[in-house]
């Protein structure tokens, strides 16, 4: 009797297990929750969680709840490979969201490609990322576009003829953005008068800035991360450099003004979206984010939310999580109304979307203009 009961129980469990599993769609996330990229990572992770909660509150996808399995990559090469392998073969995720930086995404991408699990990066702007294969996507624009936008802005709006470029040699992002800026600027009548570099972690930039000052540029392009930009701006102003400073989306954080103070006032940078966007959907999300996490959402949050939502939307459209179909559905994302703008994925699996130019004014980032691809 006991034995039969046990068998029945086991059989019931065996039957129930797949049913229980089928109630959930498991999605993976790789994100830097610790290490030097943890600032962006935390923001992305918060936004992704919000996207999951919102979707589940609205009834989930295909009648199932989304379950997010998150792996910390510790901002460290070597980690994404193991994390992605774990997500794919142990957690059996249907797709993976992340990483925010190009170098960490480039490590995860080949694995996703060979396992045929779609990967959507919220913020990897290096063109090489999606070249890995047809399962790799992103919801942000790429460096060539951003570099071109900055160069056009410098030439046309700021009427700059001579530009200085000050890159962070440790960041692939910074180098990539600078390269495309330089190429476009030089080709369209401008001159790059001086190039200098620094490393993430440096605090003193006066040596390079003094050299930049004596080259007398009309504009200084600094494609670095916000934590250094504030210091660079302060030291530049102290040295008597008054020309405008311009940069890319990595400037986008409230700490930029907290550190740079009045020194960053009036500087311009490209970003994925503007917090001033009157779209009620955007404003509602920003408000909820602030309420929930006590901090303003930057573009990392907007992109993180969008990457997750594009994925859930694609699962809905595909009607299945089967891999080739899901891949095709993501690839055919068209006119998706995201927080960071309208997302249409092109044949190279890059988001074809406009960039905005923002200006630092007081404590806020003021919308200046939108540049379409």
């Amino acid at each position, binding site marked *: 009797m006991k034995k039969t009961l046990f068998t029945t129980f086991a059989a019931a469990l065996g039957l129930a297990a797949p049913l229980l599993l089928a109630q959930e769609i498991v999605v993976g996330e790789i994100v830097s*929750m*610790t290490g030097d990229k943890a600032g962006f990572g935390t923001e992305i992770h918060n936004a992704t969680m919000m996207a999951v909660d919102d979707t589940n509150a609205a009834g989930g996808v295909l009648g199932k709840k989304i379950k997010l399995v*998150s*792996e*910390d990559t*510790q901002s*460290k*090469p*070597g980690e994404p*490979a*193991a*994390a992605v*392998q*774990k997500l*794919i*073969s*142990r957690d059996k995720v249907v797709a993976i969201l992340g990483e925010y930086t*190009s*170098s960490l995404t*480039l*490590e995860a*991408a*080949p*694995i996703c490609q*060979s*396992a045929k699990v779609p990967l959507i990066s919220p913020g990897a702007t*290096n063109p*090489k990322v999606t070249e*890995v294969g047809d399962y790799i996507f992103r919801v942000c624009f790429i460096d060539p576009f951003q570099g071109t936008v900055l160069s056009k802005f410098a030439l046309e709006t700021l009427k700059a003829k001579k530009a200085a470029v000050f890159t962070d*040699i*440790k*960041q*692939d992002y*910074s*180098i*990539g953005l600078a390269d495309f800026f330089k190429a476009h600027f030089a080709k369209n009548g401008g001159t790059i008068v001086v190039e200098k570099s620094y490393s993430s972690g440096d605090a003193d930039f006066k040596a390079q800035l003094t050299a930049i000052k004596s080259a007398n540029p009309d504009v200084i392009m600094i494609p670095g991360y916000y934590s250094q930009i504030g210091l660079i701006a302060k030291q530049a102003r102290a040295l008597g450099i008054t020309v405008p400073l311009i940069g890319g989306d990595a400037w986008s954080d409230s700490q930029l003004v907290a550190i740079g103070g009045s020194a960053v006032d009036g500087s311009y940078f490209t970003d994925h979206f503007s917090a001033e966007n009157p779209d009620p959907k955007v404003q509602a999300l920003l408000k909820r984010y602030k309420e929930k996490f006590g901090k303003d959402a930057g573009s990392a949050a907007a992109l993180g939310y969008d990457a997750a939502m594009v994925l859930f939307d694609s699962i809905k459209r595909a009607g299945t999580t089967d891999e080739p179909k899901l891949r095709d559905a993501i690839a055919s994302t068209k006119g998706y109304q995201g927080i960071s703008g309208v997302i249409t994925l092109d044949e190279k699996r890059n988001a074809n979307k406009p960039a905005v130019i923002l200006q630092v004014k007081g404590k806020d980032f003021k919308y200046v203009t939108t540049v379409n691809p």
Partner: protein
Amino acid sequence: MPMKTRLLLIAVIVASGLLSSFTASMNSYYVQILTFIGINIILGVSLNLINGHTGQFSLGHAGFMAVGGYSAAFLTTTYGPSFLAALGGSSWWSEALLFSGALVVGGIGAAIAGLVVGIPSLRLRGDYLAIITLGFGEIIRVLIQNTDAVGGPRGLTGIPGYTNLFWTFAIAAITIYSISSLVDSTYGRGFLTVRDDEIAASSMGINTTRYKVVAFVIGAFFAGVAGGLYAHSTRYLTPEGFTFQKTVEIVIIVILGGMGNNAGVTVAAILLTVLLEALRSVSDFTWLPQFVRDLTKNRMILFSLVLIALMLLRPQGLFGGFRKPKRT
């Protein structure tokens, strides 16, 4: 005894070949962990030759690994396709030829770097040597960062995924075998004398300088090979992967296993790799307080505590006590 170890070596190589042929049916996550285990064994045992057996203290192992990884990957990405074409296309043997060649070149590149580091560092001891090797490691990283041919800060992409369990464990076995038999040989006793009493050794007519350089060169060679395996496993390299933090991981393996104890270091490499992967699941243990879960997620905190605790409580390493007495 040597006959037995040689048989054991062959057995391990054959076994890794067999294991490798089942890879397709294995969970790819476990394959990845096994690969990292193998690579960490090679790194640990090779650093053990320098830090453990010879008693020097190198903090530049990640630098040697970088040199090897980058040279091997540069070869397979740049010359690989034409090499394979010349051999009549991609087949298992032409790829094996290419890969083993690339690994050896990577190892030699790293060995040259080891020579460059070793010779000038000879005048230094203890903490000065540690700092100077740390400096060399950083210089190697900055040089790679400034080399456009390997992608500079953007990293090297498109590396073929040649690394499999056969290569990893066969090479790990060869590493353990070579370094153990080197240290156990008559010649190799010299390494131990340098560690135990350098002044006495040199007054006995032992060329301590040469032993130190040889330790650096051989240690760096295997670290370079490990770098090659690593590159063809993750298929992407970035200079940021070879910072001081990477060196610290290898140093911890050596200290955990016990300096100069190859078996201990091998066990430590397995243990540490598995443990770190297991830590990923800590967030699932909801019965643990959130604070503890967050803390254990931050592995560098754990690493640092392990280092301090080991030095205070068990400086001979976890397995120091099990070491067999040496034959006289």
